[in-house]
């Protein structure tokens, strides 16, 4: 059962426009969310995060919005640049049965920004 869902496998936008990547989750116990960016042949790198006590977090061109009632979050990139072309993973922080913390990842969305 997939607890973190990224329903769009790919997204293509023009340089300078807004990119919106979406993520839905099913577990209401999730209370911290992260976005990672991954280039081919590299490990994922942390991009931005948000706690469930907030509904928005901004860092430069990147903004994450959280709608707890809808169990939905989105990542906005404005303006989009060709270097933003990568796979973006949404992740939620979860507590395991043993009391440890782990991340549950979505399947990723491949963003292509066209010049």
């Amino acid at each position, binding site marked *: 059962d997939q607890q973190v869902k990224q329903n769009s496998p790919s997204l293509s936008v023009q340089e300078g426009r807004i990119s919106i990547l979406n993520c839905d989750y099913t577990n209401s116990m999730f209370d911290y969310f992260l976005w990672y960016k991954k280039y081919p042949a590299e490990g994922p790198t942390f991009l931005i995060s948000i706690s469930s006590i907030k509904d928005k977090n901004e860092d430069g061109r990147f903004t994450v919005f959280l709608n707890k009632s809808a169990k939905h979050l989105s990542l906005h990139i404005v303006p989009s640049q060709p270097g933003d072309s990568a796979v973006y993973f949404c992740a939620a922080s979860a507590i395991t049965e043993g009391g440890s913390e*782990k991340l549950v990842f979505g399947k990723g969305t491949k963003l292509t920004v066209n010049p």
Partner: protein
Amino acid sequence: DVKVTQSSRYLVKRTGEKVFLECVQDMDHENMFWYRQDPGLGLRLIYFSYDVKMKEKGDIPEGYSVSREKKERFSLILESASTNQTSMYLCASSFIPGLAGGGIYNEQFFGPGTRLTVL
């Protein structure tokens, strides 16, 4: 800067071989993780460790084992490699939330990955 290194970027093994993937982090993190990434399936957690000699199964532990003898090093072992274990393997580390050096929640820092092909 946090650095997570993995012993090999590319590895080719034969079916039935025993395979060791090594991961080292230099930030004194308590937690270490092994994932595999496959097209269309995202990142799936194989095993993780929250302390030396401690381990916990992730979502897909079958066919794998792990070893953590030192805090900075976490090894993933494929006892008898099979073709369905061909994948990108990613190691990550993080602090335990709330402990000294960490925040309430902690991001995971990833290594560059090992592309394993089993023939």
